[in-house]
Protein backbone atom coordinates (compact mmCIF):
# COMPACT_ATOMS: atom_id res chain seq x y z
CA UNK A 1 0.00 0.00 0.00
CA UNK A 2 2.78 2.39 0.92
CA UNK A 3 4.33 1.77 -2.51
CA UNK A 4 1.20 3.15 -4.16
CA UNK A 5 1.43 6.30 -2.06
CA UNK A 6 5.09 6.81 -2.94
CA UNK A 7 4.48 6.15 -6.65
CA UNK A 8 1.56 8.57 -6.83
CA UNK A 9 3.50 11.16 -4.84
CA UNK A 10 6.49 10.94 -7.18
CA UNK A 11 4.23 11.31 -10.20
CA UNK A 12 2.62 14.34 -8.60
CA UNK A 13 5.99 15.99 -7.96
CA UNK A 14 7.21 15.28 -11.49
CA UNK A 15 4.02 16.71 -12.92
CA UNK A 16 4.32 19.83 -10.73
CA UNK A 17 7.91 20.51 -11.81
CA UNK A 18 7.01 19.82 -15.44
CA UNK A 19 4.02 22.17 -15.27
CA UNK A 20 6.28 24.98 -14.14
CA UNK A 21 9.05 24.17 -16.62
CA UNK A 22 6.97 23.75 -19.78
CA UNK A 23 7.20 26.46 -22.40
CA UNK A 24 3.75 25.99 -23.89
CA UNK A 25 1.15 27.55 -21.60
CA UNK A 26 -1.71 25.21 -22.52
CA UNK A 27 0.51 22.18 -21.86
CA UNK A 28 1.37 23.66 -18.48
CA UNK A 29 -2.33 24.12 -17.71
CA UNK A 30 -3.06 20.48 -18.62
CA UNK A 31 -0.17 19.24 -16.49
CA UNK A 32 -1.36 21.31 -13.54
CA UNK A 33 -4.73 19.57 -13.99
CA UNK A 34 -2.93 16.22 -13.79
CA UNK A 35 -1.40 17.30 -10.46
CA UNK A 36 -4.91 17.87 -9.12
CA UNK A 37 -6.13 14.55 -10.54
CA UNK A 38 -3.41 12.53 -8.77
CA UNK A 39 -4.01 14.62 -5.65
CA UNK A 40 -7.65 13.63 -5.61
CA UNK A 41 -6.73 9.94 -5.78
CA UNK A 42 -4.38 10.50 -2.83
CA UNK A 43 -7.15 12.20 -0.88
CA UNK A 44 -9.41 9.23 -1.55
CA UNK A 45 -6.70 6.85 -0.29
CA UNK A 46 -6.24 8.95 2.85
CA UNK A 47 -9.91 8.60 3.74
CA UNK A 48 -11.28 11.98 2.76
CA UNK A 49 -13.82 11.31 -0.02
CA UNK A 50 -15.47 14.72 0.26
CA UNK A 51 -12.15 16.43 -0.39
CA UNK A 52 -11.40 13.99 -3.19
CA UNK A 53 -14.69 14.79 -4.88
CA UNK A 54 -14.15 18.53 -4.56
CA UNK A 55 -10.61 18.29 -5.88
CA UNK A 56 -11.69 16.13 -8.82
CA UNK A 57 -14.55 18.43 -9.76
CA UNK A 58 -12.86 21.76 -9.12
CA UNK A 59 -9.12 21.20 -9.29
CA UNK A 60 -8.90 19.10 -12.39
CA UNK A 61 -11.98 20.15 -14.39
CA UNK A 62 -13.19 23.64 -13.53
CA UNK A 63 -9.76 25.20 -12.92
CA UNK A 64 -8.56 23.94 -16.31
CA UNK A 65 -11.62 25.43 -17.97
CA UNK A 66 -11.21 28.78 -16.22
CA UNK A 67 -7.51 28.95 -17.14
CA UNK A 68 -8.30 28.16 -20.76
CA UNK A 69 -11.06 30.76 -20.98
CA UNK A 70 -8.75 33.45 -19.61
CA UNK A 71 -5.79 32.37 -21.76
CA UNK A 72 -7.86 32.25 -24.95
CA UNK A 73 -9.04 35.77 -24.14
CA UNK A 74 -5.42 36.94 -23.78
CA UNK A 75 -4.28 35.21 -26.98
CA UNK A 76 -7.18 36.69 -28.92
CA UNK A 77 -6.15 40.15 -27.78
CA UNK A 78 -2.56 39.38 -28.75
CA UNK A 79 -3.72 38.54 -32.26
CA UNK A 80 -5.79 41.68 -32.65
CA UNK A 81 -2.91 43.78 -31.31
CA UNK A 82 -0.54 42.24 -33.83
CA UNK A 83 -3.00 42.87 -36.66
CA UNK A 84 -3.64 46.48 -35.63
CA UNK A 85 0.10 47.19 -35.31
CA UNK A 86 0.60 45.81 -38.86
CA UNK A 87 -2.19 48.10 -40.03
CA UNK A 88 -0.50 51.04 -38.36
CA UNK A 89 2.86 50.34 -39.97
CA UNK A 90 1.26 50.00 -43.39
CA UNK A 91 -0.52 53.30 -42.92
CA UNK A 92 2.74 54.91 -41.88
CA UNK A 93 4.53 53.69 -45.02
CA UNK A 94 1.80 55.12 -47.21
CA UNK A 95 2.36 58.52 -45.68
Amino acid at each position, binding site marked *: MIVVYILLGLMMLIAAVAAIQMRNIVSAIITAGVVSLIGSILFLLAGAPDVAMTEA*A*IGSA*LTTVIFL*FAWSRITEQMK*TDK*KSSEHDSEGGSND
Partner: protein
Amino acid sequence: MIKRIIIIITLIGLSFVLLPLFLNMEDAERLSELSQTYVTEGAEELGTANLVTAVVVSYRGLDTLGEVAVLFAATAGVTLLLGTKKKGGSVTDLLEERRGGSELLNTGAALLFPVLLLFGAYIFVHGHLTPGGGFQGGVVIASAFVLLLFIESDREFSHSVLHSLEALSGAAYVLIGLIGLWFAAGFLDPRFLPSGEIGRLLSAGAIPLIYSLIGIKVGSELIGVVDSLRRRS
Protein backbone atom coordinates in the same frame (compact mmCIF):
# COMPACT_ATOMS: atom_id res chain seq x y z
CA MET B 1 22.72 36.64 -9.44
CA ILE B 2 21.86 38.22 -6.12
CA LYS B 3 18.23 37.58 -6.94
CA ARG B 4 18.91 33.88 -7.41
CA ILE B 5 20.75 33.64 -4.09
CA ILE B 6 17.87 35.38 -2.33
CA ILE B 7 15.41 32.92 -3.90
CA ILE B 8 17.48 29.92 -2.79
CA ILE B 9 17.79 31.31 0.74
CA THR B 10 14.04 31.91 0.88
CA LEU B 11 13.29 28.35 -0.23
CA ILE B 12 15.71 26.86 2.31
CA GLY B 13 14.14 28.99 5.04
CA LEU B 14 10.67 27.85 4.04
CA SER B 15 11.75 24.22 4.13
CA PHE B 16 13.14 24.74 7.63
CA VAL B 17 9.78 26.20 8.64
CA LEU B 18 8.03 23.11 7.27
CA LEU B 19 10.51 20.62 8.75
CA PRO B 20 9.17 20.47 12.36
CA LEU B 21 5.74 19.68 10.96
CA PHE B 22 7.25 16.58 9.38
CA LEU B 23 9.37 15.54 12.36
CA ASN B 24 6.68 15.83 15.01
CA MET B 25 4.00 13.95 13.15
CA GLU B 26 3.30 10.27 13.47
CA ASP B 27 0.09 8.57 12.39
CA ALA B 28 -2.28 9.50 15.18
CA GLU B 29 -3.73 6.54 17.03
CA ARG B 30 -6.87 8.32 18.17
CA LEU B 31 -8.75 11.48 17.46
CA SER B 32 -8.36 14.66 19.43
CA GLU B 33 -10.97 15.33 22.09
CA LEU B 34 -12.98 17.83 20.08
CA SER B 35 -13.10 15.59 17.00
CA GLN B 36 -13.97 12.65 19.20
CA THR B 37 -16.97 14.58 20.47
CA TYR B 38 -18.00 15.53 16.95
CA VAL B 39 -17.66 11.96 15.70
CA THR B 40 -19.40 10.17 18.53
CA GLU B 41 -22.16 12.67 19.23
CA GLY B 42 -22.64 14.20 15.80
CA ALA B 43 -24.61 11.28 14.42
CA GLU B 44 -26.76 11.10 17.52
CA GLU B 45 -27.37 14.83 17.87
CA LEU B 46 -27.91 15.86 14.28
CA GLY B 47 -28.83 12.61 12.57
CA THR B 48 -26.38 13.02 9.67
CA ALA B 49 -24.66 10.01 8.20
CA ASN B 50 -21.84 12.07 6.69
CA LEU B 51 -20.03 13.65 9.62
CA VAL B 52 -18.01 16.02 7.42
CA THR B 53 -21.32 17.56 6.41
CA ALA B 54 -22.26 17.91 10.07
CA VAL B 55 -19.03 19.80 10.72
CA VAL B 56 -19.32 21.97 7.60
CA VAL B 57 -22.96 22.91 7.95
CA SER B 58 -23.66 22.92 11.64
CA TYR B 59 -20.70 22.76 14.01
CA ARG B 60 -18.52 25.03 11.89
CA GLY B 61 -21.41 26.80 10.20
CA LEU B 62 -20.01 30.25 10.86
CA ASP B 63 -16.82 29.30 8.99
CA THR B 64 -18.93 28.26 6.02
CA LEU B 65 -20.79 31.55 6.18
CA GLY B 66 -17.46 33.38 6.07
CA GLU B 67 -16.32 31.17 3.20
CA VAL B 68 -19.45 31.98 1.22
CA ALA B 69 -18.80 35.66 1.91
CA VAL B 70 -15.21 35.34 0.58
CA LEU B 71 -16.52 33.55 -2.49
CA PHE B 72 -19.00 36.37 -3.05
CA ALA B 73 -16.24 38.97 -2.69
CA ALA B 74 -14.02 37.18 -5.22
CA THR B 75 -16.91 36.83 -7.67
CA ALA B 76 -17.72 40.52 -7.27
CA GLY B 77 -14.06 41.34 -7.96
CA VAL B 78 -14.03 39.27 -11.16
CA THR B 79 -17.27 40.86 -12.34
CA LEU B 80 -15.99 44.31 -11.50
CA LEU B 81 -12.76 43.75 -13.46
CA LEU B 82 -14.08 42.00 -16.53
CA GLY B 83 -17.83 42.08 -16.55
CA THR B 84 -18.37 45.30 -18.44
CA LYS B 85 -18.57 45.13 -22.19
CA LYS B 86 -15.93 46.71 -24.35
CA LYS B 87 -16.56 50.24 -25.49
CA GLY B 88 -16.06 50.95 -29.17
CA GLY B 89 -16.22 48.39 -31.97
CA SER B 90 -12.72 48.80 -33.37
CA VAL B 91 -11.33 45.75 -31.57
CA THR B 92 -14.17 43.47 -32.52
CA ASP B 93 -13.88 44.20 -36.22
CA LEU B 94 -10.50 42.52 -36.39
CA LEU B 95 -11.62 39.34 -34.65
CA GLU B 96 -11.64 36.35 -36.88
CA GLU B 97 -14.73 34.22 -37.13
CA ARG B 98 -15.22 31.86 -34.21
CA ARG B 99 -15.80 28.26 -35.14
CA GLY B 100 -19.06 26.74 -34.04
CA GLY B 101 -19.39 23.35 -32.43
CA SER B 102 -19.90 20.23 -34.51
CA GLU B 103 -23.29 18.59 -34.72
CA LEU B 104 -22.19 15.66 -32.59
CA LEU B 105 -21.02 18.01 -29.85
CA ASN B 106 -24.28 19.96 -29.97
CA THR B 107 -26.35 16.78 -29.64
CA GLY B 108 -24.16 15.38 -26.89
CA ALA B 109 -24.24 18.61 -24.93
CA ALA B 110 -28.02 18.83 -25.27
CA LEU B 111 -28.19 15.26 -23.99
CA LEU B 112 -25.82 15.85 -21.11
CA PHE B 113 -27.10 19.25 -19.94
CA PRO B 114 -30.23 17.96 -18.10
CA VAL B 115 -28.25 14.98 -16.79
CA LEU B 116 -25.67 17.32 -15.29
CA LEU B 117 -28.35 19.54 -13.72
CA LEU B 118 -30.13 16.54 -12.23
CA PHE B 119 -26.88 15.05 -11.03
CA GLY B 120 -25.82 18.29 -9.34
CA ALA B 121 -29.17 18.42 -7.56
CA TYR B 122 -28.68 14.77 -6.50
CA ILE B 123 -25.24 15.58 -5.11
CA PHE B 124 -26.35 18.43 -2.92
CA VAL B 125 -29.62 16.89 -1.76
CA HIS B 126 -27.79 13.75 -0.67
CA GLY B 127 -25.03 15.76 1.00
CA HIS B 128 -25.84 14.39 4.44
CA LEU B 129 -25.77 10.76 3.30
CA THR B 130 -22.99 10.33 0.75
CA PRO B 131 -19.77 12.22 0.05
CA GLY B 132 -20.44 15.50 -1.61
CA GLY B 133 -22.69 18.37 -0.83
CA GLY B 134 -23.44 21.94 -1.71
CA PHE B 135 -20.02 22.91 -3.03
CA GLN B 136 -19.57 19.90 -5.29
CA GLY B 137 -23.17 20.00 -6.50
CA GLY B 138 -22.83 23.70 -7.26
CA VAL B 139 -19.72 23.00 -9.32
CA VAL B 140 -21.51 20.27 -11.29
CA ILE B 141 -24.41 22.64 -12.03
CA ALA B 142 -21.99 25.37 -13.10
CA SER B 143 -20.24 22.88 -15.39
CA ALA B 144 -23.57 22.18 -17.12
CA PHE B 145 -23.73 25.84 -18.13
CA VAL B 146 -20.04 25.81 -19.12
CA LEU B 147 -20.96 23.00 -21.51
CA LEU B 148 -23.51 25.33 -23.13
CA LEU B 149 -20.75 27.90 -23.55
CA PHE B 150 -18.66 25.32 -25.37
CA ILE B 151 -21.20 24.73 -28.11
CA GLU B 152 -22.21 28.35 -28.57
CA SER B 153 -19.85 30.84 -27.04
CA ASP B 154 -21.99 33.89 -27.83
CA ARG B 155 -24.72 32.65 -25.55
CA GLU B 156 -25.82 35.27 -23.05
CA PHE B 157 -26.90 34.28 -19.58
CA SER B 158 -29.42 36.47 -17.88
CA HIS B 159 -27.44 38.36 -15.26
CA SER B 160 -30.49 39.51 -13.35
CA VAL B 161 -31.63 35.92 -12.85
CA LEU B 162 -28.15 34.86 -11.70
CA HIS B 163 -27.86 37.77 -9.30
CA SER B 164 -31.31 37.33 -7.83
CA LEU B 165 -30.76 33.57 -7.39
CA GLU B 166 -27.50 34.23 -5.62
CA ALA B 167 -28.93 36.95 -3.40
CA LEU B 168 -32.08 35.01 -2.56
CA SER B 169 -30.23 31.81 -1.64
CA GLY B 170 -27.70 33.76 0.43
CA ALA B 171 -30.46 35.59 2.28
CA ALA B 172 -32.38 32.37 2.86
CA TYR B 173 -29.20 30.75 4.20
CA VAL B 174 -28.73 33.50 6.80
CA LEU B 175 -32.45 33.39 7.58
CA ILE B 176 -32.32 29.66 8.32
CA GLY B 177 -29.35 30.35 10.57
CA LEU B 178 -31.38 32.92 12.47
CA ILE B 179 -34.33 30.51 12.73
CA GLY B 180 -31.92 28.03 14.29
CA LEU B 181 -30.85 30.70 16.74
CA TRP B 182 -34.49 31.29 17.67
CA PHE B 183 -35.98 27.78 17.81
CA ALA B 184 -32.90 25.64 18.52
CA ALA B 185 -29.65 26.04 20.39
CA GLY B 186 -27.60 28.36 18.20
CA PHE B 187 -26.84 30.02 14.89
CA LEU B 188 -27.21 27.53 11.99
CA ASP B 189 -28.44 24.82 14.33
CA PRO B 190 -30.51 22.51 12.07
CA ARG B 191 -32.46 20.83 14.86
CA PHE B 192 -35.61 22.93 14.54
CA LEU B 193 -36.79 20.28 12.09
CA PRO B 194 -37.10 16.65 13.26
CA SER B 195 -33.91 14.62 13.01
CA GLY B 196 -35.44 11.44 11.70
CA GLU B 197 -33.68 8.17 11.16
CA ILE B 198 -30.03 8.04 10.08
CA GLY B 199 -29.66 7.11 6.43
CA ARG B 200 -32.99 8.43 5.20
CA LEU B 201 -33.24 11.23 2.67
CA LEU B 202 -35.58 13.26 4.88
CA SER B 203 -33.48 13.31 8.01
CA ALA B 204 -30.85 15.41 9.74
CA GLY B 205 -33.14 18.36 10.39
CA ALA B 206 -32.54 21.32 8.13
CA ILE B 207 -29.15 20.18 6.80
CA PRO B 208 -30.37 19.17 3.29
CA LEU B 209 -32.15 22.51 3.02
CA ILE B 210 -29.07 24.50 4.05
CA TYR B 211 -26.78 22.53 1.77
CA SER B 212 -29.15 22.96 -1.17
CA LEU B 213 -29.12 26.72 -0.64
CA ILE B 214 -25.30 26.68 -0.52
CA GLY B 215 -25.29 24.62 -3.70
CA ILE B 216 -27.50 27.08 -5.57
CA LYS B 217 -25.39 29.99 -4.35
CA VAL B 218 -22.05 28.43 -5.29
CA GLY B 219 -23.41 27.30 -8.65
CA SER B 220 -24.73 30.72 -9.64
CA GLU B 221 -21.53 32.42 -8.46
CA LEU B 222 -19.31 30.09 -10.48
CA ILE B 223 -21.49 30.56 -13.57
CA GLY B 224 -21.01 34.30 -13.09
CA VAL B 225 -17.22 33.87 -12.84
CA VAL B 226 -16.97 31.80 -16.03
CA ASP B 227 -19.34 34.12 -17.84
CA SER B 228 -17.18 37.12 -17.00
CA LEU B 229 -13.94 35.37 -17.94
CA ARG B 230 -14.96 34.21 -21.40
CA ARG B 231 -14.05 36.08 -24.50
CA ARG B 232 -16.43 38.74 -25.79
CA SER B 233 -16.91 39.37 -29.43
